[in-house]
């Protein structure tokens, strides 16, 4: 009908009148939209009030439930299915805050009641929004029953579905899924190392053992780097020796830096020998990281090499060299002070003066 009307107008009126009419029509449509938006706002206001009323009632119920002996099924029976999502949104902050027995009781509100089949049905739906919402809450509640479905969702081509399922599985501590996460992440060109780390660090330290086994044969530098970062996150001491071997032969800057950070975190003194050659590495970030690690590992035999780094071409390296010297060499502060104020035109001395004065203020 609209096409017919358009053709009719083009034939019977000139192009400018047609243009004006079109814009008038758009204006009318816009104002219909305005009315719709205003109505939506009124509806939203009503829903917000309902939600607030709901929260007021449920706040007391949840606290009584956490403190008392009420069964989760009895509590959930008091709510209509249509309001499940309100309840879940309300419980979100509790899930993020509570630990121990309280957390277990809260989880049973999902895992032992009709909320679980409700969320599982969301997880099986075709809507990414619903899947993400379900994965989030099932992961928070550590719902074992959702593992199989969540693993299936890892194969989704939708990035948000993949990420939310991976996060849920990590929260569920599903160790077997970790390699599926690595494998499937490769299908998305924009999922970064940092995004994956943010997800994988939700696992408990149990994840380190299979990753340790995998690292022995893993050739992909990205996975090596993520694995070593996770070892650092969980302070997985057992991996020290193997990471040291990997670092020595690795051409990857990322792997080397993550390894040095790891040695520093677990205070692996055996790494000092390997760091000896890296202190003059062509890449400044690596030299800088070595100095930071030495400040923790505290090998005094490095004193001259660290002094040499004070004349490095990169400021960051020079800065870290001064800090490291002051941390690991007893009495070095006096020596550095003499150097700093005895060579006023020297750049290295200027950096030393900066570190000394910052240190004075901090102390």
């Amino acid at each position, binding site marked *: 009908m609209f096409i017919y009307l358009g053709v009719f107008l083009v034939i019977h009126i000139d192009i400018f009148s047609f243009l004006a009419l079109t814009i008038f029509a758009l204006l009318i449509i816009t104002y219909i939209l305005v009315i719709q938006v*205003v109505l939506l706002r009124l509806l939203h206001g009503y829903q917000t009030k309902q939600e607030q009323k709901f929260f007021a009632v449920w706040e007391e119920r949840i606290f009584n439930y956490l403190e008392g002996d009420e069964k989760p099924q009895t509590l959930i029976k008091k709510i209509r299915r249509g309001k499940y999502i309100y309840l879940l949104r309300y419980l979100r902050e509790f899930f993020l805050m509570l630990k121990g027995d309280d957390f277990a009781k809260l989880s049973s509100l999902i895992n032992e009641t009709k909320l679980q089949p409700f969320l599982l049905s969301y997880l099986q739906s075709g809507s990414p929004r619903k899947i993400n919402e379900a994965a989030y809450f099932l992961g928070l509640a550590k719902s074992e029953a959702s593992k199989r479905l969540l693993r299936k969702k890892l194969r989704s081509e939708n990035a948000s579905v993949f990420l939310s399922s991976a996060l849920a599985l990590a929260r569920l501590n599903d160790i077997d899924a970790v390699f599926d996460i690595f494998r499937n992440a490769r299908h998305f060109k924009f999922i970064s190392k940092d995004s994956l780390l943010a997800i994988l660090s939700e696992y408990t330290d149990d994840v380190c053992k299979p990753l340790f086994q995998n690292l022995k044969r893993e050739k992909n530098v990205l996975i090596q780097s993520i694995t070593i970062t996770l070892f650092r996150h969980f302070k997985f001491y057992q991996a020290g020796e193997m990471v040291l071997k990997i670092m020595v032969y690795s051409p990857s800057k990322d792997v080397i830096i993550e390894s040095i950070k790891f040695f520093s975190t677990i205070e692996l003194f055996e790494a000092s020998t390997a760091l000896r050659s890296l202190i003059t590495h062509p890449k400044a970030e690596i030299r800088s990281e070595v100095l930071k690690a030495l400040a923790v590992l505290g090998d005094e035999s490095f004193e001259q090499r660290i002094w040499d780094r004070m004349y490095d071409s990169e400021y960051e390296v020079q800065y870290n060299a001064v800090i490291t010297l002051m941390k690991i060499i007893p009495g070095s502060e006096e020596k550095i002070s003499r150097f700093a104020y005895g060579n006023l035109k020297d750049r290295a001395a200027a950096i030393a003066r900066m570190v000394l004065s910052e240190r004075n203020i901090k102390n």
Partner: protein
Amino acid sequence: MEIIKYIVFGFNTLILLYFLAVCSIYITLNIIAFFKMSKYNRTIKYLDLKRVFKLTNYKPISVIVPAYNEENGIVESIKSLLQLEYPDFQLVIVNDGSNDNTLQKLFENFSIRQVSFTPFYKLKSQPIRSVYMSSEYPNLIVIDKVNGGKADAINAGINLAKSPLITVIDADSVLERDCLLKIVRPFMDDENVIAVGGTIRIANGCNILHGNILNVGLSKSWLARFQVVEYLRAFLFGRNGFDVLNGILIISGAFSCFSRDALIKIDGYRAGCIGEDMEIIVRMHRKLRRENPKLRITFIPDPVCWTEAPETFKVLRSQRMRWQKGTVDSILLHKNLFMNPAYGWIGMLVFPYFALFEMLGPVIEIFGYFFFIFSFALGFVTISFAVAFLTTAILYGVVLSVLSVILEELSFQRYPKLSQLLSLIAAAFLENFGYRQLTTWWRFRGMVEYFTGKRHWGKMEKKGFVK
């Protein structure tokens, strides 16, 4: 006579097509932005941003705040900034040779003491007189330098910044407390991101206490309300739309975040530049994305930074003239991007759009209006053409403005009261009858001043919203 009629008709038709194109492009951008924002809102909803505190891989940020004669608001601003939620950030205040008591206020309130300093990098800036560190807040440093303008002050800040990410904000901006958590996400999600812009919103009418937004409100001034609509249309939806094409050409200087390495690589901000916030982004496209097209300059649609809008015609005129000079300056400095296929979408679409509609727009519109009135008075145009012209120039603008408010309502709903929504709709309607034409006139004047050599910043008076 017939020939003149045809020429007049042809010219008027071109102007009409121009108006049609500019509004249609904006409507398209708004719709693209709406879908992008809906997706973003879904993604961010269950991200649990504060998890970053548990992580080992967060990126430290240096927040640089250039300050020139900010004695009235600087203390509140810094106190508010020190409360930002982020595991590791350094606050670098650059006193750009203020001739009021800005530095004195910092001494009195933050226990700052002079430290010896050596710049880490060598970006050009006016000499630094002293650097101070706070004994009370170890992450606060103050740089006192000779006045050199905003770009120069930022360069001085970058030279002493220790973190791999640099956020630049205006001293009088109000930031939402989780803004750093949000702005850092694109850098974590994609290693190719080198710059991120945040949405700027207008704080006039909001309830602000100690540098924090307590309630979002609307100013009683219609001038400020018009600007709210304008910000929604051009800044929030327009820029988000361009982002889909990786075509962001400007990130507001009031709130932006960069990779430090990228800033160093392009030698920092260009001192003395009028529109430094646009110029630096264009230069990033030109120098860095040419080398590596995978690099991204992106925009997050979250409302993160609130700023004060001018409420007097005098200040607004000065602001708009300065913005226009900045746009012209940046476009002319990098004119070789124009229709240059080596720069992809930027060269072939976004830069020509800016050159035609943002730089030359005011000239075309002002001449268009005058020419139309003149030819209508002389009887050179038909009634149907006149109706079409006015409908396109004004009513199509109404459609666009109202649509922006509708999209805001459907995506963020930042204005909580129904009365505020209705006021915004009214402002969206009314701004097309006088306000838009007035700002076009000021932009035109800005352009004239630029080409006649008056390229100074102009004075920007602010009322301040410290409570």
